[in-house]
């Protein structure tokens, strides 16, 4: 039996306000606790919130209490034994990182705080699981081939740490690909497949552009096809970090070197730097993906051994730009305000 108090399943019915229900329940609650799992970006992907909720469901089974999911995307366990609630809150903190720890209220002591939080909340139904759209999967190739090259590509300047122009990167535009894949765009593997397919389709033109210019010229490169040879240094094929896990990247790098090309690995975020040795990646350039966590200890420590000239930062905001300047790292793309 589910302990989740889902709201009305039919969209036509008015959602029930949470505060009156809690207020009615509170006089019966003594020596118990409530745990709130807030709405946070890390849980928006896929079923992550649903998975995190299993910790609260287990707590409710063991320590009692009722679960509520709110329309604003939060989950509340109310009325559980304090020790069980504490364990659930600690589990959520480990799952999500301590900075995003769940809120714990003791009842009746913290009832006012609980009610203040609940005032604007309404109980909501768990969103329905979308059924797999098989026809969309089957049509993938046709949908990808219909994407116009002009829309699929974005050009970005490459700047040195001193702000001097070093060249240009042409990359695939994720938003355009996601639009072409919808509703399958939440599947990262299909997105990666789409990038691979587009990079392969556009290789003749992009390869020619990168082979013939001057300065740094970064273009997306498919896993198994080769661009034209070049005598002009600065042609760089960009591949995703995920390709490192598939066989043959080191061999591809050697073949590219024979054609006058270098290789760059893109999409290296703080989470990857926490567990990888960047120097062991088979690439000439590493494209780091900016986020606030990049400035934290683990990521900076991982980068210490890498010559800054081999690094470029993508997606930087003003903070990212400062961080890059301090470390002597160049930037790709316009700097977001």
């Amino acid at each position, binding site marked *: 039996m589910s302990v989740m108090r889902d709201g009305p399943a039919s969209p036509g019915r008015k959602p029930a306000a949470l505060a009156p229900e809690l207020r009615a329940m509170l006089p019966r609650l003594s020596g118990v606790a409530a745990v709130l799992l807030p709405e946070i970006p890390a849980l928006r*992907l*896929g*079923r*992550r919130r649903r*998975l995190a909720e*299993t910790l609260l469901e287990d707590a409710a089974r063991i320590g009692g209490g009722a679960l509520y999911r709110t329309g604003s995307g939060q989950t509340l366990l109310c009325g559980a034994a304090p020790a069980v609630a504490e364990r659930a809150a600690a*589990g959520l903190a*480990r*799952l999500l990182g301590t900075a995003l720890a769940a809120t714990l209220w003791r009842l009746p002591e913290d009832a006012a705080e609980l009610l203040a939080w609940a005032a604007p909340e309404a109980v909501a139904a768990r969103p329905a*699981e979308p059924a*797999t759209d098989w*026809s969309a*999967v*089957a049509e*993938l*190739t046709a949908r990808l*081939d219909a994407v116009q*090259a*002009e*829309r*699929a*590509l*974005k*050009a970005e300047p490459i700047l040195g740490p001193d702000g001097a122009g070093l060249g240009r990167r*042409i990359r695939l535009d994720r938003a355009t690909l996601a639009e072409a894949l919808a509703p399958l765009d939440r599947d*990262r*593997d*299909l997105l*990666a*497949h789409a990038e691979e*397919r587009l990079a*392969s*389709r*556009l*290789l*003749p*033109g*992009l390869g*020619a*552009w990168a082979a*013939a*210019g001057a300065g740094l010229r970064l273009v997306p490169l498919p*896993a198994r096809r080769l661009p034209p040879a070049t005598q002009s240094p600065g042609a760089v094929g960009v591949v*995703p*970090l*995920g*390709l*490192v*896990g598939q066989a043959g990247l*080191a061999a591809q790098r050697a073949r590219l070197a024979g054609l006058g090309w270098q290789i760059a690995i893109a999409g290296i*975020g703080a*989470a*990857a730097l*926490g*567990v*990888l*040795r960047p120097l*062991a*990646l088979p690439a000439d350039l590493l494209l780091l993906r900016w986020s606030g966590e990049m400035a934290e200890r683990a990521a900076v420590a*991982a980068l210490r051994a890498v010559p800054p000239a081999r690094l470029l930062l993508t997606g930087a905001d003003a903070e990212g730009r400062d961080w890059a300047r301090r470390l002597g790292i160049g930037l790709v793309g316009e700097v977001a305000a």
Partner: protein
Amino acid sequence: MSGTTPRHGDALALAHLVRDAVAAGAEREALHLRLSRLAPQLRFGHHQRLVEEALAPVLRPARSRLFSLPNGDLVAVSPPQGEHLQEAQRVLSTLLGGGAGAALLALPRDAVALMSAVEDALGLGAWPPASVEAMPEGFFGPEALAGLERALQGASLACFLRRSPVCRLDPGGEAGFAWEEWRLAWPELRAALFDGADPAAAPWLARRLRRAAERRLLAELAAPAEARHRGPIGLSLAAGTLEEEAFLRFDAVLSAGQRARTVVALPVEDLLADAEGFGFARALLRVRGYRVALDLAEPAQLALLSAEALGEDLLRLRWSPALPAEAALLPPRREQVVLTGADRAAVIGWGWEQGITLFEGRLLTLLREGE
């Protein structure tokens, strides 16, 4: 005049032509009309017709071509043909005024100038695309994927499940059973379902297919009657599979004790493909009380992991002749290592030399069957 409608594809086609001409040493003449410098009113109407007429003789030879760049510039390229191009240049310079500039260029000599014209035309905010070309995708594409996923929904994978014991072997000591590793026999599954299609031709689609198969496997393992009597097991699951509804159901039928006796191995390949998602899956397994293992596909992946990457988890490492060369990269606490593919006594001997005591392989299966 359809030929002068700016087409982005032209810019890269021109870049392509320049490169080929340089590579082959083929002589070409080019006339670059910088129409982008003209006042907008001069780019249309009768001016366009004048340009068209002036260029007509230039474009008559078979291998002549007109390129419309994204910024409105035109580049006519043709084999060397004496006076025609110079004549056109003179006429157009007069008609359009000096500001427009009609530059006469020769390939391969002026390749750099022509390429920089292409670069200028593309500018930032304009996109150099390319010719549409069919990509060889082998026999395994999205259509095959959709069909297989649908087929897997109702298929029973029980006959494709392989079980092999993981044993603790101390030099000179008794062999102790640690857990039973359950995994899908992909070669057999492929032969039965794929009808010759090779998922390696599209690795990203193969990853999605793996999740579909694991979803089905977990659904079977979640049958309560089956789960109740299960001893300690090991499963290799894609990190993404843990976000499937099937994992939630599998997790729900296990007691806390059973979870603690279940080893879930996550492929390092997933860490590379989506480090954040991998981190979430791993944290989830730890919090739910499972034993976590990192599954390495090849010894070379050892070098990719930082010293902090393993934490308290296990490391599944497959024996290969390349492994001894990477021995220095083994985690310092060797009790965290499970050496798989231990099919010969020599492999176990090497493991012992390294301080490894957990093994999986044909030899252990035989040992266990003999008990």
